[in-house]
């Protein structure tokens, strides 16, 4: 047992010495490998964390949103619908939502304005997300100037700035009272943007949605599960786009690594002959090549994973957050809560370490089975 351990250590020792003699070549190979793993792992971490974030935030979302469609487009919902929907069995609450977008011509940012109850903002007051505060350089107690529908200024006092921990939902939010909302946008009374419906038993959601549609044929219910699905597919799609962009560089790396790993130079072939002639067995030579593959690929995999983790979760993925999140004037700076999916890491491991190591060993197989006396016949 101890013997075979020593054998491994000894052969690993020679592997390292042997890799080190082509230092520049092997280090650049390692660096490229590292970069590829780093990019893939970053992508994996980023998308997984965003999905998790979305799933958690959407847990608090209303069970169902009811929109109204008019001529195929979304329209305001009459508040009368509330009573009708509330009568449906299983519905516990129906709340009209008032929200919309506010384009800030000053810095080109687009804010989300929502009407909240008094707990968020009373009349003439507002609660804003930290993204808004940063863009406008505002503090609690300052006045937030908004331009109304008729170009008249509306000044609101800032009562609250949401903590940056909530940036992932609230960075661009401006919460104002319903009265101010109506006033600012000339929003018609008796209407709402959409309705948030709460249902007692989530299993009844589909039934309730069907009943709403049959009672109000122009309504479009959006279930929470549909919202969640939308997010999963957005991130999958974005991640896929990134992967597509990475694909060409990935491919060229694979070709390079394949060439490097499989191409057995005459010198390497001769070396294997020498090792055989001085008493190395075929299995010893293959072990040597195994370690050669492992040293490069495992190191790249482990380091790449660690660097990717730091990149995504400590530095908020500066390298490709833009591509994944879009190019935004008001850019939400949020820190993702780290999440590691062991299954995904295992897949990454099997996609990087295993093929490379195999590609290193296989071509040596034939060279390693030459007769030990071949070296005497040069």
């Amino acid at each position, binding site marked *: 047992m101890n013997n075979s351990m020593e054998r491994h250590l000894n052969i690993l020792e020679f592997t390292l010495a042997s890799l080190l003699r082509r230092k520049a070549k092997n280090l650049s190979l390692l660096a490229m490998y590292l970069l590829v793993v780093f990019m893939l792992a970053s992508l994996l971490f980023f998308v997984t964390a965003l999905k998790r974030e979305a799933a958690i935030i959407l847990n608090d979302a209303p069970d169902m949103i009811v929109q109204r469609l008019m001529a195929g487009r979304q329209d305001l919902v009459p508040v009368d619908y509330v009573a009708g929907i509330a009568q449906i069995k299983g519905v516990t609450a129906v709340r009209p939502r008032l929200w919309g977008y506010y384009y800030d011509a000053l810095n080109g940012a687009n804010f989300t304005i929502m009407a909240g109850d008094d707990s968020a903002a009373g009349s003439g007051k507002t609660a804003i997300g930290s993204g808004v505060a940063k863009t406008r350089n505002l503090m609690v107690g300052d006045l937030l100037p908004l331009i109304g529908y008729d170009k008249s200024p509306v000044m609101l006092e800032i009562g609250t700035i949401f903590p940056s921990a909530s940036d992932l939902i609230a960075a661009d*939010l401006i919460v104002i009272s319903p009265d101010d909302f109506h006033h600012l946008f000339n929003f018609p009374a008796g209407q709402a943007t959409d309705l948030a419906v709460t249902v007692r038993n989530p299993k009844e959601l589909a039934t309730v949605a069907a009943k709403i549609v049959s009672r109000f044929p122009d309504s479009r219910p959006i279930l929470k599960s549909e919202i969640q699905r939308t997010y999963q597919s957005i991130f999958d799609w974005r991640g896929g786009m990134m992967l597509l962009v990475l694909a060409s560089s990935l491919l060229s790396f694979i070709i390079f690594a394949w060439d490097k790993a499989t191409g057995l130079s005459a010198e390497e072939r001769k070396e294997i002959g020498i090792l055989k002639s001085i008493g190395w067995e075929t299995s010893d030579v293959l072990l040597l090549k195994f370690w050669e593959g492992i040293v490069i690929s495992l190191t790249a995999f482990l380091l790449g994973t660690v660097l990717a983790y730091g990149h995504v979760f400590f530095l908020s993925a500066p390298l490709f957050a833009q591509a994944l999140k879009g190019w935004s004037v008001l850019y939400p700076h949020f820190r993702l809560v780290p999440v590691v999916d062991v299954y995904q890491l295992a897949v990454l491991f099997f996609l990087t370490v295993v093929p490379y190591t195999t590609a290193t060993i296989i071509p040596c197989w034939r060279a390693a089975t030459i007769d030990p006396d071949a070296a005497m016949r040069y």
Partner: protein
Amino acid sequence: MRRSLQYILFTAAVFAVVLLLSLHARNAQHRRGDPVPQMQNLHVTDLCLTTEARYTRHPSMADRHAPFQEHPLTLEHFPSGSLIMPNLADRYKP
């Protein structure tokens, strides 16, 4: 120390870091604060990942195809403009 041991120690150390990071992640998930209470009253449905276009700030509230129409190089969603036939059976299910 011999090089092979150095390498193994190094690899073990990096592996330990990977394990520690996954513990760190698990811990962070446990420690994640409750959602800001004010947010719960607002019934927000979407993430603030980008802000400009209505379909990116509230993708789930927009038309069904909107989330996928945001990129200049995006593939056409509607059957008439598609290169590959979209799965109509799926999309128009009631």
